[in-house]
């Protein structure tokens, strides 16, 4: 034992040298810190590169895995489906009635009353629900119709919602009607009532409008209210809703069933529901499945290739490149919906209440499928949802669906945004440290002239000394920019702005770019012995942005990725201007940042309208986020380059 200790001591001495071990430790730590500091630009570059390249690699055909059913209770595709041509005939009859209602421009009330009448004739209790929203200068009215088919043998503690909105999701609610979707729901009600094997209540909802109707219904169902919503209370009660299926069938026939699953604020349903419906559709009903309505040009030869025409032919025909393009299209659409927090269909409104919901979109075509196939898919899917004994919890809630039957787990894509955030964090910390030190070159003592010249060049001593870093002023600047952002949001969501969006957009852009410019004149520059305000401001800005990206990444990865792309490089490389730099160059740099911050006011008025509408009606926090968080961050970076350091 003693010998072992001797040997160990000798080894330690050799490795660490003689002398005081504490001194040696401090020397080691200093050496490490130096190496880290000197390598910081390289580390930063590495993190940025890996992060961005990872983001680009996400759609690669080498990543991803197959979807599978995780919840054992679901047992999808195990049942016979008895929905047949009689039921299709009934759906056709209902469709004819609905078309008549459409043709004579029936009001919402009349349509809802028709639905209620159909339900009541079947013996299913049904009611209407009127609602109205005050949103952005307009009043949205409508009437929902809903019916509750109580479970014949169970206690009805749980419910499944089967819904169809009056307006289809085509063109994100451009006014196309969803008549066949409504007919399917009404015909389904008649058919499902014949069976006594429902362990959960079935709630049929024919919601008015596109998203507004269901928002009114589901909020009232869960007892939530909004200040700008007035909705009649629901007189028919049912149980806790675990799953919901929304049907969207705008065309005459369909060739594929597209699955839409994005919810408000970037929430996703449990993947098991998607996988079950996909399996049932493909194997039991013979209807192929799509992600969204993206038909793969590799399967439908008449569709144009996804790759641009200027791509070299060899690459265009490479299967990996084609796969990359298909996946990239799916991911792009998913990022588009989720980053904006927008729901890709009526199903998106359910996720906020922990209801797993998807929309089955019948992709319009001259194709082979119609009410028959759709009814069978729904029947089997409802039997599967019926089998559930507890909320779906087994499969994934965070995923990127890259193709029908292919997905990526969170670990495959999340680190990309986190790495970019980390790079920004290191930059910010580097700036903070930098701001705290100033170096001066001290001249050696006077001596002989000739000797001095040689000695002077050799013995120029670089001395580092600490300096005070002003913290209060940068924080005040940050707070002021955020308050400015809040003011911007208030103005953007006001009715004044929505009156003439384009014009007012330009006005706001100029105004809010000018305000920081003007206010920067009143910022007193810090004394020379202290660190400059822009330097410290840049440090805080980067650290805050990094924290923002990291936190958002686990809530809403597409939003975090978008922030990483938009903020990563501009904020890290915000040039601090030396005190002697001319004003025009500084203003030019600031103008670039102002465009990055506020350019959307000018260039994307339609997006602004949608975002504000989403906030008003659906409480999507994308609009306030952009105004109160994103804009100030970029403006701060602009101020970094504007203020003289």
């Amino acid at each position, binding site marked *: 034992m003693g010998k072992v200790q001797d040997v160990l001591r000798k080894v330690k001495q050799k490795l660490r040298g003689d002398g005081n071990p504490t001194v040696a430790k401090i020397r080691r730590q200093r050496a490490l810190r130096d190496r880290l500091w000197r390598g910081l630009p390289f580390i930063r570059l590495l993190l940025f590169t890996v992060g961005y390249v990872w983001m680009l690699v996400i759609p690669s055909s080498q990543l991803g895995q197959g979807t599978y059913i995780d919840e054992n209770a679901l047992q999808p595709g*195990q*049942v016979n489906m008895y929905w047949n041509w009689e039921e299709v005939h009934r759906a056709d009859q209902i469709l004819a009635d609905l078309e008549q209602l459409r043709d004579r421009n029936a009001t919402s009330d009349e349509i809802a009353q028709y639905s209620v009448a159909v339900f009541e004739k079947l013996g299913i209790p049904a009611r209407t629900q009127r609602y109205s929203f005050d949103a952005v200068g307009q009043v949205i009215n409508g009437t929902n119709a809903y019916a509750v088919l109580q479970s014949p043998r169970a206690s009805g503690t749980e419910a499944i919602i089967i819904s169809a909105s009056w307006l289809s999701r085509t063109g994100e609610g451009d006014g196309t009607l969803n008549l066949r979707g409504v007919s399917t729901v009404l015909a389904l009600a008649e058919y499902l009532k014949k069976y006594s094997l429902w362990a959960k209540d079935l709630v049929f909802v024919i919601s008015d409008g596109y998203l507004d109707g269901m928002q009114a219904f589901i909020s009232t169902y869960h007892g939530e209210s909004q200040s700008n919503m007035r909705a009649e209370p629901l007189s028919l009660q049912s149980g806790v809703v675990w799953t919901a299926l929304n049907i969207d069938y705008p065309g005459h026939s369909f060739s594929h069933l597209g699955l839409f699953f994005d919810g408000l604020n970037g929430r996703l349903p449990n993947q098991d529901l998607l996988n079950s419906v996909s399996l049932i559709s493909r194997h039991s009903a013979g209807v192929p499945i799509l992600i969204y309505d993206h038909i793969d040009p590799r399967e439908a030869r008449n569709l144009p290739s996804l790759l641009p025409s200027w791509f070299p032919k060899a690459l265009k025909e490479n299967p990996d490149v084609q796969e990359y393009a298909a996946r990239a299209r799916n991911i792009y659409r998913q990022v588009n919906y989720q980053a904006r927090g927008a729901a890709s269909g009526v199903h998106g409104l359910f996720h906020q209440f922990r209801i797993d919901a998807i929309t089955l979109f019948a992709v319009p075509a001259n194709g082979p499928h119609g009410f028959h196939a759709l009814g069978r898919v729904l029947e089997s899917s409802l039997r599967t949802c019926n*089998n559930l004994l507890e909320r779906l919890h087994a499969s994934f809630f965070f995923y990127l669906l890259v193709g029908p039957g292919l997905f990526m787990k969170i670990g495959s894509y999340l680190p990309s945004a986190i790495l970019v955030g980390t790079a920004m964090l290191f930059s910010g910390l580097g700036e903070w440290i930098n701001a705290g030190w100033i170096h001066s070159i001290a001249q050696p003592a006077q001596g002989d002239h000739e000797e001095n010249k040689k000695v002077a060049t050799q013995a120029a001593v670089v001395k580092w000394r600490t300096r005070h870093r002003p913290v209060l002023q940068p924080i005040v600047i940050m707070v002021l920019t955020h308050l400015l952002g809040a003011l911007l949001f208030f103005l953007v969501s006001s009715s004044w702005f929505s009156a003439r969006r384009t014009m007012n957009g330009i006005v706001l852009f100029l105004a809010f770019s000018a305000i920081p410019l003007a206010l920067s004149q009143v910022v007193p520059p810090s004394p020379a012995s202290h660190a400059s305000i822009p330097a410290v401001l840049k440090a805080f800005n980067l650290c805050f942005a990094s924290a923002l990206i990291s936190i958002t990444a686990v809530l809403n990865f597409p939003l975090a990725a978008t922030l990483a792309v938009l903020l990563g490089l501009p904020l890290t490389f915000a040039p601090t201007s030396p005190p002697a730099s001319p004003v025009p160059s500084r203003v030019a740099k600031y103008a670039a940042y102002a465009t990055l911050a506020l350019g959307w006011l000018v260039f994307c008025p339609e997006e602004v309208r949608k975002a504000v509408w989403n906030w008003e009606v659906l409480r999507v926090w994308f609009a306030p986020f952009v105004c109160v968080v994103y804009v100030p961050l970029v403006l701060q970076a602009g101020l970094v380059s504007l203020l003289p350091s």
Partner: protein
Amino acid sequence: MLTLFRLAFLASCLLYLVQAQAEPVAEFFGRQGSSHTNNWAVLVCSSRYWFNYRHMANALGMYRTVKRLGIPDSNIILMLADDAACNPRNKFPGCVYSSSAKTLDLYGDNIEVDYRGYEVTVENFLRVLTGRVEPSVPRSKRLLTDDRSNVFIYMTGHGGNEFLKFQDSEEISAFDIADAVAQMWEKKRQVYLPSLSAPTDRVLNACTRYNELFFMIDTCQANTMYSKFYSPNVLATGSSVIHENSYSHENDRDIGVAVIDSYTHYVLEYMESINKTSQATMQDLFDTYDPAKIHSHPGVRPDLFPRSLRDTLVTDFFG
């Protein structure tokens, strides 16, 4: 004098009669068959929920077979962890089928479920086996075996390496069952047996709770469950070896779930060819095991069993 002669003659006649009867009687009692006088069965389905329909069908199928072959309800303890027949998801309410032909309703007439729903716990199962039940437990829920009873224990559910899952919340291990069976072998039971001299006395009778025990289990890795038995007179069989799953046999597309497990299906199919007077032996039953059809490797553990399997009738345990 004459009376004495008559008495002697009478005595010798009696002796002769007794002697004459003794041989066939001795033969009857002494043949190399089982020495049991009554049969009991403990049938346990340990899993609940709709998608475990097949486990309940397993247990009910075995119940029907055992009743058909002659064990009365009073001698059967049926434990079903859930009610598949009255589950709201059942398209055929009140019926449990074990094949998709749906020709035989296992939940038809005359079913007596002794332990139902949440009463099927590890504790209750072990109490039933060992006899350590509360005084308030009714006779129909007790295993009132004696040392001349042949006991058939059948268990089905979800299992693994040396455990069986009960009710989604607890497990019974192979050691627990082995110890319970050991207790059955050693258990001294109080028997109310008034003697002629003292009519009100209770006499403590030392008797085991089983004569021979046949343990059958159908779960994943089932054979591990009987690997820990150490009591004599136990014959055990299971549906699959370690690291092997047991598979369901058939899905019914109207009920929507699997309705019977492979192993139990083939065992019951064989049992359909057995009736009360059948001379088929346990070896015949085990010979019908076909791993290719069952999709797993059933096993048998005969080392604790004293008799040869060729001399043990199937009806020794099943009827």
